[in-house]
């Protein structure tokens, strides 16, 4: 499916473009965002450009399985995230990051709910899952609020700042009750 455009009351998801390279670099340079990313260093703008050129060439394919999107507020890029489909196309993993200056206003919850609804209603996947660092309590709350349940803790799931970190597995299935949106 292309192009994807998801509009909430305040934030929107749209397709990433090569022109977003600088904004993506700036977003990842936010220490509070970068803390939970697996990268060992923030990619340079040129690296984002190269990635986006390659990625944008694939998004019109009919068998699209990767949806990397930009999160915007009043037209400004304030986050990024997306959906990865399983090979069968029946399960989807969601992920997102939001610039820390916008934390605490419910914007992440709105952004995550848009992704969940996109997976269940538009892509028609049966199961939506996500992982969070066990210490990322804000993100765990967001996922709970949009309807994902905690299903277990995966030990040693990621390596960051010389330490192994555990991650929570969150899942929601199409027949689960969906919390009220908005």
């Amino acid at each position: 499916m292309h192009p994807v455009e998801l509009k909430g009351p305040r934030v929107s998801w749209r397709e990433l473009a090569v022109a977003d390279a600088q904004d993506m670099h700036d977003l990842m340079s936010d220490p509070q965002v970068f803390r939970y990313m697996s990268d060992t260093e923030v990619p340079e703008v040129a690296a984002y450009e190269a990635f986006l050129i390659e990625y944008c060439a694939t998004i019109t394919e009919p068998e699209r399985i990767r949806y990397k999107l930009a999160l915007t507020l009043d037209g400004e890029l304030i986050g990024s995230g997306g959906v990865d489909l399983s090979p069968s196309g029946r399960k989807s993993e969601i992920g997102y990051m939001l610039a820390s200056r916008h934390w605490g206003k419910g914007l992440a919850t709105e952004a995550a709910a848009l992704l969940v609804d996109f997976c269940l209603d538009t892509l028609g996947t049966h199961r939506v899952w996500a992982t969070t660092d066990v210490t990322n309590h804000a993100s765990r709350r967001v996922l709970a609020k949009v309807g994902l349940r905690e299903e277990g803790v995966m030990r040693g799931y990621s390596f960051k700042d010389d330490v192994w970190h555990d991650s929570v597995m969150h899942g929601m299935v199409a027949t689960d009750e969906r919390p009220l949106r908005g």
Partner: protein
Amino acid sequence: MYPVEISGPRLAWRELTTGDADALIDMLSDPGLFRYAADQELPDVETYRGFLAEQIEAARTPERHRYKLGITVDGVIAGMGGLEMTSATATAAEIGYLLAPAYWGGGMGTEAASLLVDLAFDRLKLHRVFAGADPANHASIRVLEKIGMRYEGTRREDVFKDGKWRDSVTYAILETDARPAR
């Protein structure tokens, strides 16, 4: 890493070749085998041979992250399985295997699985090895426990089988966990 060859007291893992196509399709046609595996159509031998050729080519690259191997007993194909990472730089891998019913019940599964864990930690230097199983597949869960894996959680409605979504349990072992005596 290519080629991989690992020997245990009774069985061995080795790279698959296109010459294994007949034996593997024969084995996979056994109706006893697929009770717990996800729905999958069995390809014909010719298609499967082509598929093996593609996999072997990918296995010979430095980006190798799938180790799809054959299990042999006295030189004869007795099963297949292996180890899969999300990328060549990943620190975790999922293991899985199938054993022909003729070899069930004698601890062969435990031997096969523990050799994969050794491959992951000792040769590929990974940090985490995990496996999934159907909650009703007690034999398989028992094997995972015997090789030192611990239960981490249950993914709800994770596998589509016989027209129904089934849960899957996740087990994992870390390089720092004790590995039971071999």
